[in-house]
């Protein structure tokens, strides 16, 4: 049994194979792998008695259920209006410089993926971003430097 098969089986055993649990199972894979590859999708389909198209159809609808390969840390910078007004562009430029990637790309060491996202619900404390599930608010370029340095340092 491959690692992916093992992981999917564990998740389906934990949540149950009814379709109402599909989101939780897809999110479970994202929590561990940061993205859903073809093997994970076909394996989920098999375990849940769905077609791969049904599973892929659901997964591809949701921004956070990435079907493209992603880094260990997925950074999503809020691009919606108030964060945009409060200096999102500088934050994004700083991240592009620090990570040496453009928005939408993953660093060669597969550590970071830099993305933009829609309103994160921190409009009163913009600019804001998520790194995986964690929210960072009232960002400044200095703060961003510290955050990235700390992650690099700790891993």
């Amino acid at each position, binding site marked *: 049994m491959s690692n992916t098969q093992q992981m999917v089986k564990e998740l389906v055993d934990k949540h149950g194979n009814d379709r109402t649990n599909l989101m939780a199972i897809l999110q479970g894979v994202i929590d561990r792998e940061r993205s859903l590859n073809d093997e994970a999708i076909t394996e989920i389909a098999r375990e849940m008695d769905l077609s791969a198209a049904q599973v892929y159809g659901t997964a591809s609808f949701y921004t956070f259920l990435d079907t493209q390969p992603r880094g260990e840390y997925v950074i999503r910078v809020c691009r*919606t209006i108030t964060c945009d007004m409060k200096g999102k562009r500088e934050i994004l430029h700083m991240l592009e410089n620090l990570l040496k990637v453009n928005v939408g790309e993953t660093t060669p060491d597969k550590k970071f993926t830099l993305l933009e996202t*829609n*309103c*994160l619900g921190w409009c009163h404390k913009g600019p804001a971003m998520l790194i995986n599930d964690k929210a960072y608010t009232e960002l400044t370029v200095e703060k961003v430097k510290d955050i990235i340095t700390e992650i690099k340092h700790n891993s």
Partner: protein
Amino acid sequence: MAEKKQLKRVDIIFTEECNFKQVLSEALQRSDDEIIQSLLDSGLRGRGGAGFPTGMKWKFTAQEEADERFIICNADEGEPGTFKDREILFKVPYKVFGGMAVGAKVIGAKEGYIYLRGEYKFLLDDLQKQLDDFHKLLDELGLDFRIHIVTGAGAYICGEESALFESMEGKRGEPRNKPPYPTINGYKGKPTVINNVETLVYALTICRLGAERFKSLGTNDSRGSKVFSISGDTPIPGIYELELGMTLENFVEEFGDGDTKSVQVGGAAGFCVPRKDFKDTIIGFEGVPTGGSMMLFNSSRSMYNVIHNYLEFFEEESCGQCTPCRVGCQQLLLGVEAVKRGDKPISYLDELLKLTETMKLTAKCGLGQSVANSFASIVDNFKEEMIY
């Protein structure tokens, strides 16, 4: 100069319930009809933005013949400029659970769900802990009801109730045709009450304080108070509970930075009100309604950038199911860009306004229908900014 009128601050939502067990126990001892009647009397309308009377929703669902019913808390707060539900779930989650439990008793639901947006997943561990405690309390009080938390995954449209059910059923979050409404055909095709986070807290509060107290706040059409999410060009951004029915002029006096050009009421799906209309605009169901989002723009802001940002948002968040919304959002975005570049004449904006009218009539759900609100209110009031 007229004296500055201080807006009435209200402190209902975030006050700690010192004896929550007693509050809940007393609410649960009241008859179902009595609870529904007091919600109807209070005039409480949904706090997510659409404003459907909460008492009616509960009543209709309770009346349906069914072997199973559900109550769902819509915590998929995604409207740009809205962040009050996060604060409620962070500070007083037990009140949300309490509102759900009272609703469950009234409609006869054994299972309830909180659909938490993926962006708020960091709240999950703490919520789950508090929920475990709450379940113990329910056991003590003898109510056979359990709440489960499910999380979304970054789709704005799932805040639309029928799309939310689809998502919970493991499908693409594509809105259904309505009718049938959730009170008849909701989650798994069963009668379902789906309420906003804030609405559930008010429902519980009304059980405690009585309809009269709630009704004494606000106006005829907009009873009670409301939690506002205030952001943009303001020296004091944040979350405020205010009495409904204020004019935008009073609001701006208090929250503006002295140079407010316009206020976006109700998020990207809402209306942009220009300065000249502040005086005559009431925040509430008789004027401009809002799910809480209030974004202030001062004269340094380009309203072209604002509408461009909204259109990028809608273009990406449109579920793509119906053509008016999928193609309409794309064409609006391309259209304003073309006018700005000078590739299209000014009169092209009128064509785009017609397109939003068509979307309003033909789009399947509120997303496509409401693009017209912000588009028309910005393009009509700030035409020169669209061009130069």
